């Protein structure tokens, strides 16, 4: 696993409506990349600590995930540099350990996690209803998000 330098992770749950968006976007990026050397792509529907173990051994990680803040329109996205993020408290329940907490935990345990971790967080509308279809506004955003990630993260053979 450690042979590749970068890993692209589509994170989400494909049967929970908009929670599939991370996986859908990652697939689109991967198809466009055409299986390049030095890059792996995985789809993950795991909790925080399992995800960090998946990232271990890579130099760079690009994670695509849903986010539900209610502060912007569904389909809008942002890039969060998790390389520098830190959290003040790690929850004491497995069900409350998210990606940020797990990365912090791994960092403090001296696990070899990527130097660069970029997380693309796509605002979603519905992540509480079981279903295999995304809402229209989130589905419509997929091409643009994928194109941006392709350019920003893999544009110069990164």
């Amino acid at each position, binding site marked *: 696993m450690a042979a590749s330098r970068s890993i692209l992770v589509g*994170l*989400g*749950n*494909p*049967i*929970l409506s908009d*929670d599939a968006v*991370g996986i859908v976007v990652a697939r689109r990026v991967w198809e466009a990349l055409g299986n390049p050397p030095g890059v792996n792509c995985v789809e*993950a*529907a*795991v*909790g925080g*600590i*399992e995800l960090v*173990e998946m990232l271990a051994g890579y130099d760079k990680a690009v994670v695509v*995930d*849903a*986010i*539900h*803040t209610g502060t912007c329109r569904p389909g809008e996205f942002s890039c969060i540099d998790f390389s520098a993020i830190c959290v*003040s*408290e*790690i*929850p*004491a*329940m*497995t*069900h*409350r*350990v*998210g*990606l*940020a907490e797990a990365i912090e*935990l791994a960092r*403090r*345990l*001296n*696990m070899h996690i990527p130097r660069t971790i970029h*997380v693309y*967080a796509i605002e*979603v509308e519905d*992540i*509480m*209803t*079981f*279903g295999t279809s995304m809402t229209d506004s989130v589905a419509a955003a997929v091409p643009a998000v994928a194109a941006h990630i392709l350019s920003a993260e893999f544009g110069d053979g990164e």
Partner: protein
Amino acid sequence: MLSKRITINPVSRLEGHGKIEIFLDDSGNVDRAFFQVPELRGFETFCLGRPAEEMPRITPRICGVCPTAHHMASTKCLDDLWQVEPPSTAKKLRELAYSTFMVEDHFLHFFFLGGPDFVVGPTAPAAERNILGVIAKVGLEIAGQVIRIRRECRQILETMMGKVIHPVFGLPGGVSKGLAKEDQQKFLQTANFAIDFAQFALQLFDDVVLANKEYVDLILNDAYAHKTYYMGLVDENNKVNFYDGMIRVVDPAGNQVARFHPRDYTQYISEHVEPWTYITFPFLKQVGWKGFVDGPESGVYRVAPLARLNAADGMATLLAQEAYEKMFETLGGKPAHATLAFHWARLVEALYAAERMKELLEDPEITGLHVRVVPTEIPREGVGVVEAPRGTLIHHYWTDDDGILTRVNLIVATNHNAAPMAMSVEKAAKGMIKNGNVSDGLLNMVEMAFRPYDPCHACATHALGHAPLEARIYDREGRLLKTVRK
């Protein structure tokens, strides 16, 4: 008399937070508290019309933390649905995989999550009350050991089940592949390591927790105790079994009140509905729903590690049995009602699961070639039950003659424990709010009350961030006095 604010605005039922609402009486003391666990919507609708055989692949996606439990309960449900008995080797392989999963999950929870309350201390700052505080106490090497045991367990799971997180292993009537002899020997090394590490963890508990009177007093503190009924799976000797057996229920005094086949659960468990939440509250039918109260007159019961050990007569393996006896002796006998002792019980269970791994791996049948009986009966209705790390997990499917789902019912551990969790929150809130004064430590103490249950707050969703844990305090007239958020 309760404030009319109790009739919660329907809009609040649609929110997905872990939300606590506290209502004060005229004296400014807690009258009632409500703990809302968010619930995902539409699972049954999603499943209807699908082949039941898809459920061992679908249901692991309900929970991102313990998908293996759903996979196994679903597989057993399909056995029952198609009325097929798996061959002995298949059942042993399933139990081997499941025991491995329990080892991995329990160690993760104790060292990284629940255990820090004890190892570091419950009054330590929240920023220290985590694995980092544990490392500071016991050394970085221990954290490395936990990571190692988890890695080795997950390698076993990947070898046996195809994938760790979403296994392709269980089939109606058996499993998809057997165990090679070379893997058997390799896995035995992991089993032995797991046994040693579980014993180390229990010794750590001894040295750090039991040797500290303050910690012991906290465990035994009435603020964190509920005298409820207890439920868990037991084998033919009434010993704890995670994979199979009968469901046993004991009363708050430890007397057996029910022991039934999983298929008969609807005769013993009913579900109570409250207007302020979508989640239902299972209770014991024969006792009845008496509200959010404990005691022998109330049908509220608990599941999960301590509940399992209370419901059983012991552990089926030698070292775990010794640990079981020591635990109850320290806690003042059986059953133990101290919620914080869930963490201790978790370690006893980890030891049992490790010993069971070894037993199964040393069984010559484990490398047998006959791993599946193909079903031939017409499907109708099936029930599958396992003990998930956090409690009894029930899968119940109904199908047409072609095996297409017509109805689905799942009762997960968070369901079973919903009423006890609500009670724990209320009890903690009553201890923290006096005469209108809300202590700054409110959320920490309240969280400590339900953390041992490790409730599933819609963890099927993997969206970034978590809705904050929020407590809202209202006066007698329903006016919002204060919001505390974490």
